[in-house]
């Protein structure tokens, strides 16, 4: 029992310390997550008190047992002297539970209402989940203002973003713990979630509904920046891919378009126009590749293209047979997609 008590104290200490992390419920960086954090803290206090009361009662029962003479006389069957006290305590206990529940239900209900409130002028983003990556589309005014990216969300601080959630294959769940709770992406349904970041920084989201083989490696990055930086990023994303200039890069582009790569990927402004895998137009502007699995360095990119199945066994990207020099050229080309 002491172990459990110590555990509770440990929990309280750890949660109050609110260790920072890119994917952490206890480190809210968005309005919604902060609201939910209020529920969490209320719960922790109310439930913690209740638990201590139960443990105190249990402790006193155990303590009384120590002082009693151990006699094996007839068991107690008639009404005992203490039963009046117990009856009254039970009534109080029921009252306490009911009060506690009313408090918790009310707090929960009020926060739930506030979560439903979107706020003015929201940014509109469409996220489509696939096995096992995230397709992201910023819906601007008309097709020319549309930004396509993958496995990364850029958000301006302070402005609500309404994310429209779709799924292409199985059920996934969209979750950025630092910003808000999670919402499922369900084939045949459209869900929405609102994110209102309150501080800049890099966060991480992850699929939270089991979705098959690589569920564990289906993450995405969230970059919360100032509105100016966000706008600059948005403009840069609208640009088409620049033509490569170096001979190696040009060769890489040819291989990319001539081999299997272009069957699935899109690089805007080139012949590669398929939408089955992530849009690669500005691949190098992202922090990670393979849905948050590897950092976006040249070495990791090379490793990923050379053998995706080695990094994410079962992923839908096949191992494309490339010679060492072809691989080198393709990666050089990908490095130009900024």
């Amino acid at each position, binding site marked *: 029992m002491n172990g459990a008590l110590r555990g509770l104290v440990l929990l309280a200490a750890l949660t109050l310390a609110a260790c920072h992390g890119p994917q952490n419920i206890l480190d809210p960086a968005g309005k919604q997550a902060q609201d939910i954090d209020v529920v969490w803290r209320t719960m922790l206090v109310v439930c913690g008190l209740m638990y201590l009361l139960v443990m105190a009662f249990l402790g006193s029962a155990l303590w009384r047992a120590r002082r009693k003479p151990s006699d094996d006389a007839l068991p107690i069957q008639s009404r005992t002297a203490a039963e009046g006290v117990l009856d009254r305590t039970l009534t109080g206990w029921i009252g306490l539970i009911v009060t506690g529940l009313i408090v918790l239900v009310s707090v929960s209900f009020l926060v739930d209402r506030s979560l439903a409130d979107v706020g003015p002028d929201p940014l509109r983003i469409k996220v489509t989940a696939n096995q096992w990556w995230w397709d992201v589309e910023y819906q601007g005014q008309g097709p020319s203002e549309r930004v396509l990216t993958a496995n990364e969300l850029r958000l301006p601080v302070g402005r609500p973003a309404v994310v429209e959630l779709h799924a292409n294959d199985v059920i996934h769940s969209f979750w950025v713990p630092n910003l808000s709770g999670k919402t499922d992406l369900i084939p045949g349904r459209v869900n929405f979630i609102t994110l209102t970041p309150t501080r800049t920084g890099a966060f991480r989201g992850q699929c939270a509904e089991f979705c098959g083989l690589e569920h564990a490696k289906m993450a995405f990055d969230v970059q919360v920046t100032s509105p100016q930086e966000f706008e600059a990023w948005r403009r840069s994303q609208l640009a088409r891919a620049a033509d490569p200039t170096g001979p190696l890069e040009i060769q890489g582009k040819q291989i990319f378009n001539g081999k299997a790569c272009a069957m699935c990927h899109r690089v805007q402004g080139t012949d590669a126009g398929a939408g089955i895998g992530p849009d690669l137009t500005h691949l190098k502007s992202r922090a990670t590749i393979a849905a948050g699995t590897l950092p976006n360095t040249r070495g990791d990119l090379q490793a990923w293209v050379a053998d995706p*199945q080695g990094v994410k066994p079962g992923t839908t990207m096949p191992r494309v047979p490339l010679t060492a020099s072809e691989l080198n050229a393709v990666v050089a080309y990908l490095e130009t997609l900024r």
Partner: protein
Amino acid sequence: MVASAWGGRMFVVLATACCLTACNRENRALDASPAETGPRAVTVSDLYPGAPAPTPSDPRAQEYEGNAQHIANGQRYYKWFNCSGCHFNGGGGIGPPLMDDKWRYGGSIEQIYASIVQGRPNGMPAFKDKIPEAQVWEIAAYVRSLSGNADKLAAPSRQDGIRAIPPINNMDRAPPTGDPTPSMVGPR
């Protein structure tokens, strides 16, 4: 005790039997990369329309043909690589139907593989280099299942989508007959 020993032996025998039959059908080769040597056994010479199916069998055919996972992957690639653009969901359109028993270029998985890799006259493009071999084999396995020729226990039923074709695993088997009249080649 005797009975349980007998039961144990029986169990082993049964399990082995199940294993042998289920092995290929249920195997999940996540890292699908067979020896990438090109369409070895399939030569251009015997790929005139209406050829019977004398093509020597490719060892890889066995691996793909009756395997549930490979057929399912093939179904996915069929959608992704827009095979439906010409063949529709198997019923045929610009390209020939894939659900009937007519196979102009042979209906064995090796021949279907060759058709995809090498392309065919009158519009079927060659996907050599465009689609890695393992994926071509998977598509071929799926295409073969469309005419009810795959192992019923490995074939999928419906897809998650608009119903275009009856459940594949409930289809009647349409054994490939080839098309005896070469003049029929081309869009109908």
